[in-house]
C-alpha cells in the first residue's frame, strides 16, 4: 500500500509501514518493554525466534550530508554503548527519506552489526543491510569500543583539519597585510634617507668614494645616537 507521507502524519505513518514490514517477516510486535533506558532509545520493538529486535527511526531533515552522517554515526555509537549488556538480539536503523550521500558506509553498519532500512517519501520500505544477531560477549563489547574509537578518531581528525585550514587562512591574511605595511615603510625610509643623505653630503666637501661608506644605513643610525 503506497501512501504519500506528509509532514503532519510522519511518525505514525512511518511506524505503521515499519510494523507492517516486520509482521510480513514473521515478527511479533512488542508493545511494552520494562527497561526504561532502551524504551527512550528506540521507537519500536519486535520479537522473533532469535529474540528481541529494536528499531530506531531517524528522519532525514534538511541538514547537510556531513551533519546527517554525523547524526547517524552518533546514534549508532550511542546504541552500541547502551545495549551491550541488554538482551537485544538485533537492532535496525530506519532512515526516512534518505539522501544516500549522507549514509555511512556499508562496512560501518556491518561492523556495528546494525541493519539499515530506508523508507522513501512515497512510503517504499527497503531493507538495505540485514541486522546481525548480537552476542552478549566480551568480543562484542570490544568491537563496540573499537568502533567508537575509530569514529571518534576520524571526527577528531576532520575537526583538526578544519581548524588548521581556518588558521592558515587567517595567517595568510595577516602576512599579506604585513607585506603591504613593510612596502609602505620601505618607501618612507627610502624617501627619508634620500633627504638626509643629501643633507649629509652638503655638510662635507670631501668626495669620498669608499665602498664601505656608500649607502651604509649605519651612518644614519649612528648620527642619531645623541638624539635618542
Amino acid at each position, binding site marked *: 500500500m503506497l501512501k504519500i507521507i506528509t509532514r503532519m502524519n510522519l511518525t505514525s505513518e512511518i511506524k505503521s509501514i515499519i510494523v507492517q514490514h516486520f509482521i510480513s517477516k514473521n515478527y511479533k510486535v512488542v508493545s511494552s518493554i520494562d527497561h526504561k533506558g532502551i524504551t527512550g532509545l528506540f521507537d519500536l520493538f519486535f520479537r522473533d525466534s532469535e529474540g528481541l529486535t529494536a528499531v530506531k527511526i531517524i528522519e532525514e531533515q534538511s541538514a547537510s550530508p556531513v551533519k546527517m552522517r554525523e547524526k547517524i554515526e552518533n546514534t549508532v555509537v550511542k546504541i552500541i554503548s547502551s545495549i551491550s549488556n541488554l538482551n537485544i538480539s538485533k537492532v535496525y536503523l530506519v532512515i526516512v527519506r534518505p539522501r544516500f550521500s549522507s549514509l555511512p558506509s556499508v562496512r560501518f553498519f556491518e561492523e556495528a552489526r546494525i541493519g539499515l532500512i530506508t523508507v522513501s517519501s512515497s512510503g517504499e520500505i527497503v531493507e538495505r543491510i540485514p541486522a546481525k544477531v548480537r552476542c552478549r560477549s566480551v568480543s562484542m563489547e570490544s568491537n563496540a569500543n573499537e568502533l567508537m574509537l575509530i569514529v571518534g578518531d576520524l571526527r577528531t581528525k576532520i575537526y583538526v583539519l578544519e581548524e588548521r585550514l581556518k588558521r592558515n587562512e587567517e595567517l595568510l591574511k595577516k602576512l599579506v597585510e604585513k607585506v603591504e605595511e613593510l612596502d609602505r615603510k620601505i618607501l618612507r625610509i627610502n624617501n627619508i634617507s634620500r633627504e638626509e643623505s643629501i643633507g*649629509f653630503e652638503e*655638510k*662635507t*666637501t*670631501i668626495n*669620498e668614494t*669608499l665602498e*664601505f*661608506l656608500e*649607502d*651604509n*644605513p*649605519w*651612518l*644614519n*643610525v*649612528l*648620527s642619531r*645616537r*645623541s638624539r635618542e
Partner: protein
Amino acid sequence: MSVDIYRRKYAYGEDYGTSYFKFGPIAEKPEVIENRGIFVSDDESIVLKIFGISKNIIVGPKVSLYLGSRSDIARYLIYPMKDGRVERANERAWRVIYEITKFGFEKFKPSGKEFDGFYVTAALSATAPDYMYERIFDIHSKIDEELNVVKAVTIIPQPLAVAIAQKTVTCVVVESGHGNTQITPISMYPIRNAIVTLNRGGAEADAITAEILRDLGYEDRAREEKFVRTFKEQVGLIPLDLDEAIRRAKEDLERFHVVYRVPGTRIEIDMGDKSWMRFLIGEIIFNPEHEIFESYYNRGMSRPSDTVVGGERIRGTMPLGEAIERSVNYTPIELAPSLFKKIILSGGNFSWKVPQGLEDVAVDAATKVRKQLRDMEIQAHVELARDPMYSVWKGTIVYSIAVPDDYLWDWKRKEGWYKRGVHY
C-alpha cells in the same frame, strides 16, 4: 671647518686583534702589524743609545730584526693578547699595547696646522672587561699628551664593527678567532645580555690537525705550530654531513686524496687513505660534539670548556647552529625572525673554500651553519663577511665619522666619545 667635516677627514680606526693590530685614518684599507712586541733589554742600555735605539721595546715590522738577538726569546717576545684579552696586571703586555697604539699615530700624524687630533674608534672583543676599556682610554690620553693626536676616542665591540661594515643594522655576528667564538645579536646596538661565547676556535682545529699529523706518522710536524696551521688551512674541509662525507671519502679514495706540499720546499704530506680526515678539521669548529671526536678527547685532546651566560651553562662543544639559536633566544621574541634573516660569519675559521669536484660533500661555512639551523627547523640567511681581514677596521671608520661629537662616553651604555677637555 665644521665638526662633521673635520671628523670625516680625521677619522681613525683601530682593530685590536689577538694576532694582528690594524690601524689607520680613513682610507681603502688599514695598515697591519703583528700584535706583539719585543723587549730588547731590561733597562736603558748605553749600547742601544749609541746605536740610536732609545726604546727598550720594539713593535711593528722591525720586531723580526730582533728575534735573533736573545737566546731566551720566549721571555722577551710578548704577545699581549689571548683570545682578545690582556691580563689586567700584566704590565709588560700593556706596555706592548701602548707601543703599538703609539706606533700607528706616529706613522699617520698629519703635519698640517688645522690638525687638532684624530677621532679614534678602537674595536675590542665583545667580552672585553671594563678594565680593558679603562686601560685603552688611559693609553690614548697619555699618547695625546705626548703627541697631540687624539681629540676623542671611543671603543666598540668588534662584532658591532663587522655589522657596520656589512651595512646591516639588525643581524647576528658570529666571530670565530683562535681561542673563542662569539655570537653577538645586534639591533642598532649590541644586545649584550644575549652574547654567547664558545670556548673554541682555530685552536681546536689546530689540535685535531696535530692529531691527524700524528696518525699519519708526522709527530715532529705535529709539534710545529706554524706548520700545523698552514696544513690545516690548506687541507681542511667543511662537510655538509660528516658521516656521509666520510663514507664517500672512504669509498672514493682517489677523489678525496690530497698531498700537501710546503711551498718552496720538497716537504710533502701524503694523506693517502686517511684523506677523509680532512673533514674532521672543518667539522670540529661547527660540531665538536660529534661522536667521532670522543676518541681524540680520550686520547688527551682538550675538550672545549663550558661557559656561563646569564647564569646558564653553555657547553663548550655545543654545535654552532644550536649556540646561535640559544643566543637569539635571549633576545626579545619579536626580534628573533629579523635576527635569523641575517647571520654574518666573520673570522679566519670560516674561510675554508669548496674545492672543485667535491661540491657534493664539502661546503662553505655559511652553508654549514644554514644546514645546522635548518635541521632545527629554523630558516636563516647566513653569509660570510665580505672582507673578513678588514671589516672590523672599516666599521670603526664609519663609527668615527657618524657618531655626533656631543655624544659623550657613558659607562652604562658603553658608548660615546671620551674627549680631550672633558675626560682628560
